């Protein structure tokens, strides 16, 4: 008999994996944020957009699946966060609507608003998407102002409905770190995918300019995280209290999490070295795998152990733990069987990706291809 606690942990693992993949795939957003600054001419912009445009659906689908999986496995989080932090999530969603159409519409004749408007949509999504998702995830550690009643109905403490997270410096640190990471990964992906010497040189320069502030923001966030207080949930009484070094304790008390975090950080550093010093097209893969590992480790730190993964800063008793927020044992078990298909999904995505990326994008392809963005 598989226990309810095991299933809750299993589903947090799946959520963590999806979160890691989502942050990695936000290289699409990171790349979009360069749409006005990196290309020197329309052809370079076309190559940039087409390189990213062949992957935007992966990010989008991962976001949808992330939402669906959270809904199915931890519905109380879904209800609390989405129904409470209304403005943050709505702004994120808004930025994704305009992205979805921008690729298809930007270069089509009679698109009414002109290419530059759709390119601006891509830029807005490229900046806002990763930044706000970073801020939203940071509240897993810093807490939000909400309370739940007897029937688990949420009341948000401020009329800002999530936007108040933007005045917390720690949230901003993670927001900017995720944005800069997406930009770094975006540059690595473009370097990997586009065969253009001039654009390649621009990417090289931009990579250095973004990698350094990324490291600064990431280190500052991890310092705040590990040296600050965390929301500990007592497994016996359910009482939630602020405890110093909780997240550092969660990191080092679980060997797997520690190894995952450290190996992820090392891989990201290797990718930066490969990208900036060696100018290697393989940097994206090291950076991507490292990103998935670090994000998963951060989610493990937030959710596993005696920790509230979605804490309430104003009503600690309302904080969400995996046990409190999860679906029933039956649902989690049923969903676990469904999740066994994930390796198969990853395999066919990998196969399709490789089939399309065998040849790097160049000027000739852009001029000869039937279907370009």
């Amino acid at each position, binding site marked *: 008999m598989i226990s309810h606690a095991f299933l809750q942990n299993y589903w947090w693992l799946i959520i963590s994996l999806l979160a890691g993949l989502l942050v990695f795939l936000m290289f699409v957003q990171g790349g979009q944020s360069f749409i006005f600054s990196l290309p020197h001419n329309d052809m370079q912009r076309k190559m940039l957009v087409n390189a990213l445009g062949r992957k935007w659906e992966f990010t989008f*689908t991962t976001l949808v*699946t992330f939402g669906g999986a959270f809904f199915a496995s931890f*519905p109380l989080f*879904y209800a609390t966060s989405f129904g409470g932090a209304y403005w943050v999530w709505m702004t994120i969603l808004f930025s994704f*609507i305009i992205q*979805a159409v921008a690729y*298809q*519409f930007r270069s089509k004749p009679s698109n009414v608003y002109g290419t530059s408007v759709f390119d601006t949509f891509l830029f807005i999504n490229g900046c806002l998407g990763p930044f706000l998702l970073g801020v939203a995830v940071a509240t897993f550690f810093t807490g939000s102002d909400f309370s739940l009643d007897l029937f688990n109905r949420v009341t948000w403490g401020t009329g800002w409905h999530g936007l108040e997270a933007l005045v917390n410096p720690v949230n901003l640190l993670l927001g900017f770190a995720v944005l800069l990471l997406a930009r770094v990964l975006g540059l690595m992906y473009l370097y990997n995918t586009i065969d253009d010497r001039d654009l390649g040189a621009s990417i090289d320069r931009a990579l250095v300019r973004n990698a350094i502030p990324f490291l600064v923001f990431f280190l500052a966030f991890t310092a705040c995280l590990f040296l600050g207080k965390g929301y500990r949930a007592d497994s016996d009484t359910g009482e939630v209290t602020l405890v110093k070094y909780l997240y550092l304790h969660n990191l080092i008390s679980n060997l797997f999490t520690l190894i995952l975090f450290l190996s992820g950080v090392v891989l990201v550093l290797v990718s930066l070295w490969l990208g900036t010093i060696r100018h290697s097209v393989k940097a994206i893969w090291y950076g991507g795998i490292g990103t998935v590992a670090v994000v998963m480790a951060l989610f493990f730190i937030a959710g596993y152990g005696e920790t509230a993964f979605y804490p309430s800063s104003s009503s600690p008793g309302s904080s969400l733990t995996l046990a409190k927020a999860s679906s029933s044992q039956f649902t989690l078990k*049923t*969903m676990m069987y469904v999740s066994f298909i994930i390796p198969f999904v990853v395999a066919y995505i990998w196969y399709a990706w490789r089939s399309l990326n065998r040849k790097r994008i160049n000027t000739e392809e852009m001029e000869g291809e039937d279907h370009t963005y």
Partner: protein
Amino acid sequence: MIENIDLSLVNWSRAQFALTAIYHWLFVPLTLGLSFILAFMESIYVRTGDEIWKKMTKFWMTLFGINFAIGVATGLILEFEFGTNWSNYSWFVGDIFGAPLAVEGILAFFMESTFVAVMFFGWNKVGKKFHLASTWLVAIGANLSALWILVANSWMENPVGMVFNADTARNEMNSFRDVVLNPVAIDKFTHTVTSGFVLASVFVTGISAWFLLRHREEILAKKSIFIAGIFGLVSSLAVAITGDRSARTIAQVQPVKFAAMEALYDGKSEAGLTVIGVLTDSDDRIGEKKVHDVKMKIMIPKLLSIMTTGEGSGYVPGLKDLVNGNPEKGILSVREMMERGRYARQVLTDYKMAKEIGDDASVASLGAKFQEQDFINNYFRYFGYSFFDHPWQVIPSVPVTFYSFRIMVALGFFFILLFVLAIFFQRRDKLERHRWFLWISLISVPLAYLASESGWIVTEMGRQPWIIQNLMPVSVAVSNISTGAVQTTFILFAVLFTALLIAEVSIMSRQIKNGPKH
């Protein structure tokens, strides 16, 4: 909190969800059907090697791509709006409702989005067979995606496969099989996807007719009309059959919606089906709801009784029976259901309070009630009714439901005729000679959208005031946010969706005018 819910918040939240759903459904049915038409065309190309079929596939694929992106974007919003605008609902039934959404993402959406990239960009990069397989997988993925979201939607119409857990104060799934094989889900899936096939077939027929009217791309147009005609005819017959099944199921599980569809106020035996009619206000009322008379009606005698009970003499309850009760027919009044629901809700509140203060004796005695069949079947099943103030509040908008239903059905039969004629004229090579038919085909394109949206209006407006039939009214499900916030996002979405729709129609029109690349 529930007692103080601002109705304008509920209405604006409904309006926002309806806006998103209506826009979403402008794009999705074309994706569902056109993906299969592309797969048929490309299959013929791979089998015959005839370049005309490749040209056709690529032309319709361009239109598919323009349409696809907005469907995806609006779909994302719908999924998250359950959380942002209906958070109480999300918690109350997330244990059941979330599962199909997650399965949709893992099983179907990834398939669709992965292979759509191969379909668009793989022509010169992958082999013919892999490309064809990708096109088929896009079609299968898109329709699988529809399956899971419709399973979720159907559960809201007919909640099955679950048990109430008093400790968590929510419904929890106890049979995934029952959720997936819910009779409403089977009817709704088959009816909805085949209606998408019909819409896409009308679209292809209409655009092809335009080419013929302009004496352009005649080979492409005739071959397209042939494929769309056959696909459309088979699908529209399936729509009629599944629609009939769906109506019978609604009569069983949502009798109030069924009575509203027929504007049937007084129950009767040997009830006829109203084919056409005009609703006029009468002096009669049920509470504050107006009662409508059906004038100028054409009826098929006894058909409604046959559909509902299987017998021509069968009794079909009207809205008055369903609201005021009819002891003779074993129908409980809504007021009685409200009373029983209030009792069940009070037991739940007492149970939660006893747990809160640690009153173990009360916890044990009250908790035991949730295991008793008498309490579950005679009281807790009416839990949702406890939130109403007046019995008449369970009646949906009769005119909206009545007329939407008739628009949908009439157009459905019209499309059958359209496809029969399309195949007939195409096989005799007489399409160009019947310019009236080409014009009708072209004009039918917006009618297909009207029929499709009308179907959803029947479904969603007809089940009001419930978000989950008999369990949860919309007023209880809404998130606790300010009306102003929802009004703002409603306006933002309305402006954005409309602006994008204008762009889409403009781009689509231009691509059609340009025709296929030579």
